[in-house]
């Protein structure tokens, strides 16, 4: 910590000594060592912005993954209208020049000694650590479930990856053709893109209708609590739409086991376990922090976000309260809401601006308001562009788009606009 304090102090002194309006500057001359754990959406966007804002800093990004997935596009792959190739890119294309990429995973976080250890045994010390590891999909927490089952025996899951999303599209088509009961739902804990389970329900309904097979399929959404969505106006709207489309809802049903042979799913409910027969099921796995984060002192130590290992963070600044030189960004951040790529787009500038300000000897001012966006696809060619903050207030970016109305223009943004905006975000330009 001493080195970081020295750097901050030196920067502050330099600023005062020169008598400049450093508070207005957008860059920092700091030579701090910044380590970014994870080269997903948040990690790459952080690296790109920091490279420009802190040209003298040593920036290291650590991730073993070579492929990069545009995860917001998984829904469209699952709908059968995008191919896996459309959501698959290479990390090397987005690592900014001047940023060192360590191609390994972080095996150990040691925030007390300001260092991380990679899976290859390399120790990397830092002045600032930005944790952007993403999360783990915990399919194994559902008894009888395994990723290899996706696409077989009526089991779908668009979360596991592009190929699994593609296999899910095939499973949906087979289900619509054969008919029967389709089950949908979501896990009880925090999850990325909480709208996706609803989207895939709407898409299945829409595809069945367009093929004249809606009468042959019964669709049931199993909500994990007494609501289908955590934002009240969206919950009301989706509930109304489900009723209008003859999609049944079971409340407080959490998937705990699956029997692929018997095609039965067991749900934990307030009145005990209930087993439902299905012909098709869309499984959304419980999600948690990666093992290295779970084993570290970084997660919340108590409260609702502790069990799954989400990193303790101030919800306005994403700074770790116990380790002030550590920030958590993206899915791993233990803040309410915020597990979408759109959230990353708003979180990254806050962290970078504050880091730049701090290393330039200024007072960090940027605040993240919990912005989360969910283009709620309600059928092929229509969507609701839902954006909200920590408090559940709808905060539309485009005043001419009604967030609770099914519109083609919202679909246009989803289908044609988001990928370009996402790529620009990875390059720190949006």
């Amino acid at each position, binding site marked *: 910590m001493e080195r970081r304090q020295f750097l901050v102090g030196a920067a502050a002194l330099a600023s005062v000594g020169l008598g400049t309006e450093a508070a207005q500057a957008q860059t920092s001359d700091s030579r701090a060592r910044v380590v970014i754990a994870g080269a997903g959406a948040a990690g790459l966007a952080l690296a790109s912005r920091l490279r420009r804002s802190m040209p003298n800093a040593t920036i290291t990004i650590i991730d073993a993954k070579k492929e990069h997935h545009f995860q917001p596009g998984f829904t469209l792959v699952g709908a059968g209208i995008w191919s896996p190739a459309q959501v698959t890119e290479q990390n090397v294309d987005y690592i900014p020049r001047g940023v060192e990429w360590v191609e390994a995973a972080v095996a150990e976080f040691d925030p007390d000694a300001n260092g991380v250890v990679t899976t290859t045994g390399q120790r990397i010390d830092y002045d600032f650590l930005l944790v952007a590891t993403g999360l783990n999909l915990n399919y194994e927490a559902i008894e009888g479930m395994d990723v290899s089952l996706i696409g077989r025996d009526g089991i779908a899951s668009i979360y596991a990856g592009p190929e699994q999303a593609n296999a899910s599209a095939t499973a949906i088509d087979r289900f619509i053709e054969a008919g029967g009961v389709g089950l949908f739902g979501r896990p009880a804990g925090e999850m990325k893109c909480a709208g996706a389970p609803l989207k895939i329900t709407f898409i299945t309904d829409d595809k069945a209708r367009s093929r004249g097979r809606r009468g042959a399929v019964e669709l049931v959404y199993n909500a994990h609590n007494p609501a289908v969505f955590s934002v009240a106006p969206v919950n009301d709207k989706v509930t109304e739409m489900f009723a209008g489309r003859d999609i049944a809802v079971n409340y407080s049903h959490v998937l705990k086991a699956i029997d692929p042979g018997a095609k039965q799913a067991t749900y934990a409910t307030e009145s005990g376990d209930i087993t439902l027969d299905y012909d098709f099921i869309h499984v959304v796995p419980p999600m948690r922090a990666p093992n290295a984060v779970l084993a570290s002192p970084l997660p919340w130590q108590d409260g609702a976000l502790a069990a799954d290992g989400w990193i303790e963070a101030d919800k306005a600044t994403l700074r770790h309260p116990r380790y002030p030189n550590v920030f958590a960004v993206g899915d791993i951040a233990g803040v309410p809401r915020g597990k979408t790529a759109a959230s990353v787009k708003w979180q990254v500038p806050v962290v970078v601006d504050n880091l730049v300000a701090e290393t330039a000897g200024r007072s960090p001012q940027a605040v993240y308001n919990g912005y989360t966006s969910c283009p709620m696809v309600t059928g092929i060619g229509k969507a609701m562009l839902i954006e909200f903050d920590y408090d559940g207030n709808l905060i539309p970016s485009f*005043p001419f788009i009604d967030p609770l109305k099914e519109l083609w223009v919202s679909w246009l943004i989803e289908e044609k606009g988001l990928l*370009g905006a996402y790529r620009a975000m990875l390059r720190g*330009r949006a």
Partner: protein
Amino acid sequence: MSDFDLTTIYFILSESMGGWLWGFVALALLLLAAIVAGIMTLRKNDTPARRPLVAALVAGLVTTIIFTFLVPIWTLAGAGALAAPIDVLFAVLFALVPGGVVGSAVFVIMAFASNRRVAAIA
């Protein structure tokens, strides 16, 4: 929308369209140059611009109307996806691109055709 400045929009377009962005820019500049050349030709020959203009407007309008219904298909939606006035407005805005290209091309062709007619008469 505070973050949607011109720089951001440029980068989003660039990442969305790749090399096509510069192809469209080149096409737009080419058409602009051709329109200017067409106007100069009409003036040089003292030919009224009414006929090329009307033809361009009609061709552009027809193309825009046709493409307004094709734009949803470009987004993998059905032609009947336009559900609200805002949908139609955005579809028209997109359709104005091919409409503008066709209208410009018709104007230029008509302008130079009138030049050839004047030359033949002379």
